[in-house]
């Protein structure tokens, strides 16, 4: 975290002031360590609580969508449900198959959770709140994300169970397929900002066009298309519905988690939600202007407040989509990634290049710029969509 400028409002500086009040009396070398430890503890506490209440919110919202109340017995409106679940998970028996690879079986959830936690380090949560401001922060984020595949393989293989191994292979196929459009949709953002640093990307989205429309990446043609691709791919990367095949409760036993029980299972669950939060935070940073407020008049709300609002809105969309869409089949899933999202992401890259080259166009040419840019992505979208769904869509559903 950088030193606060004194031009900001008090609320903007409040977290830094509180931290400096606690660690201010320590000598210089110890202060840095203490500051870092406080940041880590705060991040873990905040995202731990978010995880707890996200599970509750998800169950409540899914319940409401399906016309049932959801958990409402523990505490007011079921508010203590996540803690009851935590106690249940902690006290459950931890079963380990006798034939399993004991060390790998133990290491897999630990590796998965730690890899998903370290991605929180580079997300700018507020104007002065970047835990680690790396020059290649975006690359760090996706490198840590791609290393999680190893732990999924470890989980499947160490269980000594053919269903777990097969399911791990399916999960890996999904993760590898969707990593490509995910990364390709991020490239235009890096191209436009000219930097891989997360705070640099947020800085590049400052200001308002015509005084009202914020200059967020999502309000450019390539940003809108890129955000759509990013969102779909992050649904798949975090194993969320409609891409939750790796652990399809109603069809498979539990995928690569078949032989996991008790707290290790809870760790996998936690890693999945942390991954979802981290990807949403990255989406907010890359496309939705990060911690910036949408209107100049609303800047009195501190930057971390805006970040939290946007993050919760994106997470709400994740839950909403889970309640709405049915699950895909594995062939539909890989086809969507390789035949549809990857070509579109490549086309989007071309459009971003056109957008960057035509930055000087003004007046009526501005309209032509928008028209050409939208055509570059809309035409392949329609052509590909028509071609891929030929003979398949529109479907007729017959209900019994």
């Amino acid at each position, binding site marked *: 975290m950088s030193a606060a400028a004194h031009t900001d409002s008090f609320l903007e500086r409040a977290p830094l002031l509180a931290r400096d009040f606690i660690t201010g009396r320590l000598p210089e070398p110890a202060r840095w360590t203490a500051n870092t430890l406080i940041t880590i503890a705060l991040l873990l506490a905040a995202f731990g609580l978010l995880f707890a209440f996200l599970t509750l919110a998800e169950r409540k919202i899914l319940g409401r969508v399906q016309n049932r109340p959801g958990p409402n017995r523990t505490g007011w409106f079921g508010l203590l449900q996540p803690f009851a679940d935590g106690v249940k998970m902690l006290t459950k028996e931890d079963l380990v198959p006798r034939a399993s690879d004991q060390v790998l079986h133990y290491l897999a959830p630990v590796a998965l959770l730690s890899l998903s936690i370290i991605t929180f380090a580079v997300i700018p949560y507020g104007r002065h709140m970047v835990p680690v401001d790396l020059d290649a922060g975006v690359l*760090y984020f996706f490198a*840590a994300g791609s290393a999680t595949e190893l732990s999924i*393989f470890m989980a499947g293989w160490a269980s000594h169970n053919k269903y777990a191994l097969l399911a791990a*292979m399916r999960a890996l196929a999904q993760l590898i397929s969707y990593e490509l459009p995910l990364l390709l949709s991020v490239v235009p953002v890096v191209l436009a900002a000219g930097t891989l640093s997360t705070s640099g990307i947020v800085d590049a989205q400052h200001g308002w066009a015509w005084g009202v429309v914020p200059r967020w990446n999502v309000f450019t043609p390539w940003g809108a298309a890129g955000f759509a691709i990013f969102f779909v791919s992050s649904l798949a990367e975090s194993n969320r519905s409609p891409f939750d095949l790796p652990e399809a409760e109603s069809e498979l036993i539990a995928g690569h988690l078949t032989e996991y029980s008790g707290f290790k299972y809870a760790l996998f669950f936690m890693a999945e939600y942390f991954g979802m939060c981290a990807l949403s935070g990255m989406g907010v940073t890359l496309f939705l202007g990060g911690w910036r407020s949408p209107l100049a008049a609303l800047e009195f709300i501190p930057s971390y407040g805006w970040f939290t609002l946007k993050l919760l809105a994106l997470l709400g969309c994740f839950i909403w989509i889970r309640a709405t869409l049915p699950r895909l089949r594995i062939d539909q899933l890989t086809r969507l990634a390789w035949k549809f999202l990857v070509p579109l992401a490549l086309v989007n890259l071309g459009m971003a290049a056109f957008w960057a080259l035509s930055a000087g166009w003004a007046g009526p040419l501005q309209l032509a710029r928008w028209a050409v840019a939208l055509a570059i992505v809309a035409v392949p979208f329609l052509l590909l969509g028509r071609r891929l769904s030929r003979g398949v869509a529109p*479907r007729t559903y017959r209900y019994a």
Partner: protein
Amino acid sequence: MNAVLAVIALVTVASAAVALSRRNLLHSILILAGSWAGVAVFYFWAGSQFLAFAQVLVYLGAISMAALFAVLLTRHSRDDVAGASSHQRAVYAILTGIAVAAVLLAAVARTPLTVRPSAPPPLSVRELGYTLMGSHAAALLVVGVLLTVALIGAVVLAAGDPPDPKEGEP
């Protein structure tokens, strides 16, 4: 500072050595992944963040997966470990090792190493891009063509089956 380097080097080399000595191929790959991670940490220690994260992305994310899949697709069962070693194999292994080491050492010895105590250049993505597309454009193109050929080859190999008429039905 040098103590950190020593720890990184020890972890990298030791995990590579342990990986070579394991009978279970999957264990060796997972330990080898630790060695690759050690190389990434070394790049990070040397101040090259971009290279470090690219190393993690490529080696831990992709190459380890390729190796794991190759092992899983070629072994008949999970207890199918490498066979007993023979003297002939040991001789060949040592000869190959000596040859590779000789090539590497010759390359290191013939490269002029100038020690410049200057500050490392601020490496931005923009400069990296200009370097790649400017002075190293030929190498970049060659690598691109190579990867494209490999990709097309993989598609041709994988697309050998006749299309299933039932595929795509709802």
